[in-house]
């Protein structure tokens, strides 16, 4: 397998679209439940946890970009083979691929659960999962340009929803945030850990990198993208903390949607019905990005056609959707992916980049010593 990937000129995307890619890949089903999950750990200081989580993500992103810059135009699949050799590298690749596929599945199932709880209790899972998977396959079949395009339009098309936050702010009680920094560091860090499911998605940069036109600007735009996400998430968490009473927030499974319940548009009474439907546009790029990155593995590792990979993962995910029946199963799976995500998206890239930096440094020294002698 070649380590570097040199896509055709026509397939490359502009560097500034990385901003939207990162932002869209991060914002998804996680954020709907984020305030509560973090609140359970860090109480009314959970917004600090979310903010720190964002900063931590931006650190991971920095390491990631440093690592990617050591190569000409490589993705994670190539780097792993380069660092660990053919066998271990490919084993890790397959592991990462399955992580990406499971993430894809979890996003899908979480959204379906939300739809079933909030709008259609009797909507058969297989129908909507089939529809969503086909939609994703249709997008991913168009290639990376379409995937990034979906991400871009999703961000552009849903920014207005951030302004909806103003409505619950009228009912907010800012005193709930006081006293600042009252929770101890241990709980806050626990809260940071809990943000991992929502902030996940930025690791896909490692797969997008070869397709970016101006690679020098990747660092800048990925950081901006992550900062925007962090800012939005922090704002959402803050509004949720002030909007709900503390015991109330702890009991609400999807605080963001519950918050939207009070929004009234002049000719629409209950905004959460619109929001749940509209959330499809938010999770679509999420699913597309994960499916794209996972199916990329097929063409990178075993030299199959990527199309084949897309269909295989799609059909597997659809088959998997028959096995999830109750809320607690969903919870277990989501928790599992959150743990896995923390390891594979946050910790592992840092470790890998350190390895790559050390390796390249040794190689560089060897080369220079060869040149000297």
């Amino acid at each position, binding site marked *: 397998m070649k380590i570097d990937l040199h896509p055709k000129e026509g397939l490359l995307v502009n560097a500034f679209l990385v901003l939207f890619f990162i932002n869209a890949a991060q914002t998804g089903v996680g954020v709907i439940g984020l305030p509560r999950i973090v609140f359970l750990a860090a*109480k009314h200081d959970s917004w600090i946890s979310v903010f720190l989580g964002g900063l931590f993500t931006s650190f991971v992103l920095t390491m990631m970009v440093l690592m990617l810059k050591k190569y000409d135009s490589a993705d994670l699949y190539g780097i792993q083979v380069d660092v660990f050799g053919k066998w271990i590298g490919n084993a890790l690749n397959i592991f990462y691929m399955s992580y990406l596929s499971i993430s894809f599945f979890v996003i899908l199932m979480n959204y379906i659960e939300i739809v079933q*709880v*909030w*709008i*259609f209790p*009797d*909507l*058969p899972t297989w*129908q909507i999962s*089939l*529809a969503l998977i*086909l939609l994703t*396959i*249709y997008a991913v*079949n168009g290639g990376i340009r379409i995937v990034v395009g979906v991400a871009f339009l999703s961000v552009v098309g849903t920014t207005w929803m951030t302004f909806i936050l103003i409505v619950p702010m009228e*009912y907010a*009680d800012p*005193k*709930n945030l*006081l*006293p600042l920094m*009252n929770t101890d560091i241990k709980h806050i860090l626990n809260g940071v850990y809990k943000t991992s499911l929502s902030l996940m998605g930025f690791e896909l940069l490692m797969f997008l990198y070869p397709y970016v036109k101006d690679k020098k600007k990747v660092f800048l735009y990925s950081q901006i993208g992550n900062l925007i996400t962090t800012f939005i998430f922090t704002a959402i968490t803050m509004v949720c903390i002030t*909007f*709900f*009473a*503390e*015991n*109330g927030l702890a*009991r609400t499974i999807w605080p963001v949607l*519950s918050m939207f*319940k*009070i929004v*009234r548009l002049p000719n629409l*009474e*209950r905004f959460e019905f619109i929001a749940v439907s509209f959330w499809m546009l938010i999770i679509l790029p999420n699913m597309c990005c994960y499916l794209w990155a996972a199916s990329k593995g097929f063409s990178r590792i075993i030299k199959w056609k990527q199309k084949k990979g897309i269909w295989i993962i799609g059909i597997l995910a659809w088959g998997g959707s028959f096995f999830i029946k109750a809320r607690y199963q969903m919870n277990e799976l989501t928790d599992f992916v959150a743990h896995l995500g923390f390891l594979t998206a946050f910790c592992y890239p840092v470790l890998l980049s350190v390895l790559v930096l050390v390796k390249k440094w040794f190689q560089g020294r060897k080369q220079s010593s060869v040149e000297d002698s």
Partner: protein
Amino acid sequence: MWRTHNCKLILLTICLIMMILSAGCVQQKPLEKLGLITMSGYDLEGKNILKGTVVVQKFDPMTQAATKVITSKAKTSKGLRQEENLQSNQKLVSGQLRSVVYSRDLAKKGIIQLVDTLNRDSSIGNMVYLTVADQTASEILDIENDNKGNLNLGTYMYNLIKQNVEGEQIISPTLHEFNHNYYDIGKDPVLPILKVKGKDVIISGLGLFKDDRLVDEMKHGDLFYLKILIDKYRAGTKEIGFKKDQLKKIILKDENYTKKPIYSKIYVAIDNIRSKTKIKLVDKKNLRFQVEVRLDSRVLETTQALELGKPSSIKFLEKKFNEAMEKKIEKIVLHFKELGIDPIGFGNEYEAHLRGKTISKKEWDSKYKESTFDIVVKNTIKRTGVID
């Protein structure tokens, strides 16, 4: 140039639609086939039995206003729904529920069980108004029958409360606000109390809750003070009575103006009030709160001619206002303390300054009993209408 790359997907989509159509889709809820519950009431009937009454909005091409009142008995509110469905020719749904009435007995025993089911049901909105009936809930809902279905009680109640909330007469009693205050340790909910008067329903006062139990009632004369303590005030009117000798200094002694006053007291009405209230924890140890109320207002009516042209007399009037209000507010706050209820949210203020540990409900209740309050009212009379 015929590319066939997406013909497969188009075919698949068509297949999908066919499959779904043949497999049967989601249960439909066409509007005209539903009985929309717009208002529901709960009474406690003997031991362990709940009596539920609902006003159902139906759509009938024959009649203009088709509402129906259905009563049933069960243990839980969803059980009530089952029973009520047996009495209806259209499927009863609660997605358009606008207001809920709890009987006084029920409210005294606690209503959280019934509120919780409203929270759990995703089809019920968060802006449902919760109210307490002066006596029984069914009595209020039966008004609909007295009016032979012409009143449309669900909408009437919704507008009655909404209008008064917007006119700043009462504190907004939505489900969301009830939840917030209930789940908050340092605050207690308040809900309006409804009363039947003739063929109409009126708001007779505010019920003060301790957690989810009705403890006391506040007559609507004092609602103004509660409102300025809890909320910002933007518009509205308040009349305050003074004894004659209190305002002696500024009574106009014009020859042409010596009509005999009608009342024995002097009443001054202020209007266009804008208020801002700050609650500060002044002394953390001894729990002393300072309540500072700032009011901007204009004088619109006096029952006896007052000398309002002079700045000094305006100042004097302001001072008198401050004193009267301070006295009244202090009385209310002390009354709350005595009952152990905290609709104003002193607990929240205390909690916001509590560093390092969290406080439990019990701890706060005992602390609240010991707290003291300084009340400062600063009223500014901005203008006196179009004449002096």
